[in-house]
Structure formats: C-alpha cells, structure tokens
C-alpha cells in the first residue's frame, strides 16, 4: 500500500453491522462466485446498497472486519500477510459460496492492533502463514460493503472466549479489543471503516429448500427471536447502546444470537458506545436467522449529507 499516513491523525469514519450470510453474495451473482442464483433476500441486499451509497461518500482507506467464521481458541488473531489470493468455499453452504478472492491486507495496522490488544492484556497473535485461507465471513462482509476490493483489509478472528468462559467475560474482552482497535487506528493515522460481521438472532433451520433462493420458505426461526431482534434494533436506533451492552448476555442466550462471536460488542467498544442514532438500512431473515444492516457514523466525522 501507499506510504503510511501521519501518526495520530487516524479515526474511525464509520462502523457497520454487516452480517455475512453467503446467501447474499450468492444472490448478487458477482463474477468471483461460482454458483449462480436467480434472485433472493432483496431486503438485505438493498440495505447493503444503501450502506454502500453512504460509505462511498467517506474517504476510507482501510476496512477492519471482525468475523465469526475465523474461529480461534487461543486468543484474538489478525491477518499479517500483505496479500491473499485463493478460493474460499463455505464448509456449511458450499452449494452457495465458492468465491475467488484477491485482497490486500494492511499489515502495519494489523500489527498495531495486536500490540494495543496485548497492551490491554489480551492474548493476540499475528497470522503470517501465506497458505492461510481467509474465512467466508470476512469475504462476504467485505464483498457486500465494498465490492470493488480496492481497499486493504484487516481481519480479526473470533475468539472462543464466550464459549470457554461466559458471555460477560466475552463481552469484556471484546470491548477491550474494540478500544484497542480504535487506539491502533488513531495511532497509525488510518481512516477506517469497521465491519462487525455477525447476524442478530441465529437459530437456523436445519433443512434447506431445494432452490435456496425460494423466498416462500424464508422466515424467522421463531417469533421470540424476531421480538428480540426488534428490541435490539430499537435500542440501536435510539442510541442506547450501553443498554444494549447490558442486555447483550441475555440477548445471546434467548435469541441464540451470533453476537456470541463477539463482533458487535467489539464494534460498539471501538465506537465507545454510540449515543447517537444508528441508521438501520435493512432487516431480513436468512434460513431462519435474523440479520440487520446497521450503520453508525460518529457525528463529528460525518460527511455532509451522509447521515439522514
């Protein structure tokens, strides 16, 4: 990448909840993906379109994504290889997602995040194996938020801390990691977009329609999940993210939420718990799970006209 910007001038320009169901990439039919679809999941895809329109107005120079599908049991890992080019096949939905990716990574920022995280007492590792395959969660969220692939990426793994300990311990670590991420962005002078790549409620149907994009089969797994999703989105729209964090452990348990993988808590920690309204671009279900595309632009950094 180009020469690093001046240290200390960095900031987070925007953060987004950017869920990663591979169905959305499948339905968009980008040339990198092998399977072809007719259509499907338009609510969410059109929501991503609105997110992209807002993001295009910002002068972003790096995307930092926290993905539930790079699962690590020993701490938090960041990609530390300058470039990756390979084929990503979703082990769960290989019929939908076989994506040829070609991406660059911001290793300097990744190392800074690892240093800041370690300084906060977190177990951090930098992944330097060039044969490593990037997970489909990272790819899906990046593809949907910035399909041009013209910006370097920093990918952060999802530590299993929630599963090894409990939701409160997990949230504490993820908030600390979010704050470490923000410090690294500021220290390295980056203008960053942060993507939290998780669904909200996350109980799947365990059968799939013969035609995956058959929307007559698509609905929430159960009404309780939907009520929880609406409640959480309502808190985001009201700027009550501290209350959301307080309720996060219950949300995770009652709605089988993918927030248990830590992405949203990381994002809210990095944004220091927004008290300004989030812009909700879309809500929709994918094979029973609840997904929202939500954007936060810190008001002091917002581009004129980008925040409605």
């Amino acid at each position, binding site marked *: 990448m180009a020469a690093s910007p001046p240290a200390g001038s960095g900031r987070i320009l925007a953060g987004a909840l950017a869920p990663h169901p591979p169905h959305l990439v499948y339905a968009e039919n980008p040339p990198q993906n092998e399977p072809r679809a007719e259509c499907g999941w338009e609510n969410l895809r059109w929501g991503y379109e609105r997110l992209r329109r807002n993001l295009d107005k910002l002068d972003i120079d790096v995307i930092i994504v926290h993905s539930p599908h790079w699962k690590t049991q020993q701490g938090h890992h960041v990609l530390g290889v300058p470039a990756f080019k390979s084929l990503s096949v979703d082990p769960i939905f290989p019929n939908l997602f076989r994506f040829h990716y070609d991406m660059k990574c911001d290793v300097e920022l990744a190392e800074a995040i690892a240093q800041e995280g370690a300084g906060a007492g977190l177990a951090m590792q930098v992944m330097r194996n060039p044969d490593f395959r990037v*997970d489909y969660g990272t790819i899906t969220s990046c593809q949907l938020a910035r399909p041009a692939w013209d910006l370097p990426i920093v990918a952060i793994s999802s530590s299993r801390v929630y599963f090894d300990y409990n939701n409160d311990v997990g949230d504490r670590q993820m908030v600390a990691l979010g704050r470490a991420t923000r410090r690294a962005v500021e220290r390295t002078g980056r203008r960053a977009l942060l993507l939290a790549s998780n669904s909200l409620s996350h109980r799947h149907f365990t059968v*799939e329609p013969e035609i995956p994009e058959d929307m007559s089969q698509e609905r929430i797994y159960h009404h309780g999940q939907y009520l929880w999703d609406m409640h959480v989105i309502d808190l985001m729209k009201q700027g009550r993210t501290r209350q959301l964090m307080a309720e996060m452990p219950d949300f995770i348990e*009652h709605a089988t939420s993918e927030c248990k993988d830590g992405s949203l808590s990381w994002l809210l920690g990095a944004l220091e718990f927004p008290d300004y309204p989030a812009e909700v671009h879309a809500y929709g279900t994918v094979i029973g799970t609840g997904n929202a595309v939500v954007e936060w632009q810190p008001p002091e950094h917002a581009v004129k006209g980008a925040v409605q």
Partner: protein
Amino acid sequence: MSVELALVVPRMPHPLLCPDASPGYRALADAYAEARARIAALKPDLLVLYSSAWPCVVGHQIQADPFPEWVHVDQDFHALGSIPYKLRMDPTYSEAWAAAGRARGLHTRTVAYRGFPIDTGTVTALKLLDPGSEIPASVVSCNMYADRAETVVLGKAAADAISAQGKRAVAVAVTNISHRLHPAPVPPLEDRFASLKDDEWTRKLLEIFGEGRLEDVSQLARTFTHEAHADSKLKAIWWLAACSGPHNRYQGEVLAYAPVQGAGCAVVALTPDSSGAANLEFDEDDVDVFHGDRNVLDPGPEGGHVEPPRQAPTHSSVAAAPAAKPAPVQAPRVRTGRVDVAAHKAPKPVGAYPHARRVGDLLFLSGVGPRQAGTDAIPGGPVRDSDGHTLDYDIEAQTRAVIDNVRRILEASGSSLDRVLDVTTFLVDMDRDFKGYNKVYAELLGGIGPTRTTLAIRALPTPIGIELKVVAAAGDADMAALTGAARAG
C-alpha cells in the same frame, strides 16, 4: 460385513505437525502409528469418519469428492505450518450413506467441490492413519444442533451402507475428549490439561473405554458434557457406537492420553469381541428413525403441529408473545361402531389386518412385535438368521420395543398406554425369556395393572421372540365406568 475396528482419535494437528515438541504429542503420534499398523493388518476397504471439527447447520454433509486436494492451514495453529494433502474418498459409499440417512428421516447430502475446506481433524487423522491414501474414506460433518437421536441415526445409516455394500470398515471418531484449551499458547514442554476436573472426568471415561464398553461411554456423554468441557457434546462417540454396534462387547485399549494446548486428547482402539462385557443397561432410547429436532410432542402424521418454544425479551418496550398452543391431536372420535386404525409410527402389519380396531369404547390391537417402524429392525436382534440358525438375542430389548410399539398404536388411536386393560403375551422360548420379559413388563406395565396371560408358542411369523395382544380403553371412553363395570362383572 461390518465395522471391524473402531477408533477414537484427536482433532488437534500437533501429532502430525510437531510430534516431537513434547512427550505428550509424541505419545499421541506413536498411538496413531499403532492404530495405523492395526488398520494395515486388517486391510479394510473403507475408513468411515465423523469429525467434530467439521461443523454444519443444514442436516449432515458427507464428503464425496474422489480425490480432494489442497494445502490446509489450521485457523488457530497456523504457526505450526501448512498441511498439503491429497486424500482418497469413496463417493459411491458416501452416496449410499447419504441415501441411507434419508431413508431414516435425516437431511443428508454429499458434497464434492474443488477446494472444499476439509477440516484439520479429518486431514490429520487421514494423514496419520493412512499416509498413502490407499484406503478410500468417507467423512461426515458434525451438525451443531443435532442431539443424540439424530446422531445415533446417522451412525446407523453409516452401518446400513456398510452392510449394503459389503464393506469391511474401520470407523473413526475424530474428536477431542475434553476441549478446554489454554486461552493463550503454552510452550509444548509446559503443556498440561487446562482443567483438572476435565482431566478427572476424561480419565473415568477412558477407564470405561479400556473395558471395551463403548455404548456405556456413549450413554455417559451427556453426563460428561454437564460435568466437563466436552468436544461437541461427544457427538462423535454417539455416532461411533451406533455405527460400530451399540453395545459393550469390545476389547478396548487406550493407546495414549495427553494434553494438547490444554485439551484432553486420546487415541482409543475398540475391537469387536463377543466375549466382552454384555449389554448391561440402556438408559437412552435406541432410536432408529429421526423424526425432527423439535417435535417431542408432535403426534406425527396423525396429529397436529407443535410450534418451537418461544423466548421473548421481557423488556417493557416489547410486547410479550402469546404462548404457542399445540393443535389438538386428531384421532378417531367415533364412540360406536367399528373403526380401523393404521398407526404410521408403528411397524407395518405383515398381513391384511389393521393395527387396531375400535368397537364401542374398546380398542382391540392386532398382535404387536418389536420391529421398528420404517426399517423393520429388531431391537435386541433377531432370534434366528435367514438360514434358520438360532441367534443370541436380547429379550429385554425386544420386550421394551414391543411395549413402545403398543404405545405408538394406542396414541395413534387417541388412547394411551395407561388405558391398557388386558394383555396376552406370546413367547417363543418361555424357559429362556420369561425372566427378562417379566422384568421389563413389570417396569412398564406393572403399575398400570392390566390382566395378563403369558403363553409359549413354537414360532412367530418374523424372527422375533415376543408378541403382545392388547385390549385397551378408547381415549374418550369413561375409564371409571369401564373399570367399574368390569369390577361389577
């Protein structure tokens, strides 16, 4: 044709990538080598695997790419190096396994895509057990929602396909036992179990494994999961027992047990052995057909649909959802005349007769045996083989299955087991079987107290040891009036 050796091996890559980094990793690598030698001596024509490191959510996926090839890097242990592999699968068997799963009610499908990310556990196991990829393999994923019933049926489907294709197979459960890792990497020479209680519970399981009691370990999986940090609920052991034979007649050997970054990893070999410990007890259902993951109260094709449970936020800004009400069971409601009942969850009749006939307030059941709906499998085994040779069978398991079939027919008829009034039992070997039959009968029907007659007969139409003839009160009959009338009579 069957499973000739069952193995439990860990999912961690360390025995492959850094076997000499610690004595524990070396012990696991040596145990893998011992297992490899036993496989080579058996010369099986199939390795069939279940990997806890391959998660899925849509049913179960079975690998069917004939020669999957890639350079694998573990998501966690990428610093240990890359693992190039070229494996050999048996797509014909994989398809047969998937078909057998569908026949047993599972959502199973094969996958064969270039670049499919075969998991660390599978790659490690196959490279260490069959380095030259000389033996075709088949591997299935671990569904994150599946509980015991679904996983047991998946194992039975694997066995169905092994039998149908005449394979001599080695079954491999790729799983750690305990799965609590150190939160940060530890130097290999300082590796230790992350949890003392996980280690203690694992040693207890390994002691039972060492006695060859595979089914007992399978039935202890829930307990282990409650008490320790199990790897994926030990679903792989449920699968292994169902695939290899759900009993305790094995020669068991724990070839190694060691910590790998805190997790409890073991290599266990189980060789079928008729002189091993008998089936001591069964606390769990021996499920043959999967009926779905959330339908405990679903009365099936005869009845209505039960919504999954709701959990709604209690915050005041969210309206509470009304509780779901199951639809009423639809059953014959005719109080007079005759109504025939066919129960879809009971084995098909072997002749031209209904499962049950209602006359007035009474239900008369045709003779009921232990065969399982959908498969005709006989729990406890048949009493004779196809050539007429006598076999060793389990009369307690057969009796339990018979009474369960009676229950299914009664429930399909709108009645229930506690409304049974009179039982006639037919045994093909009174001397051998009365005691076991009587024990299970007392457990399941003794408290209900129907009148009973037990007869010895020469044979039954299928190779079963027991059949029951039952009369019961209909579901909407006035039980007090019926029994009162009986007392008056």
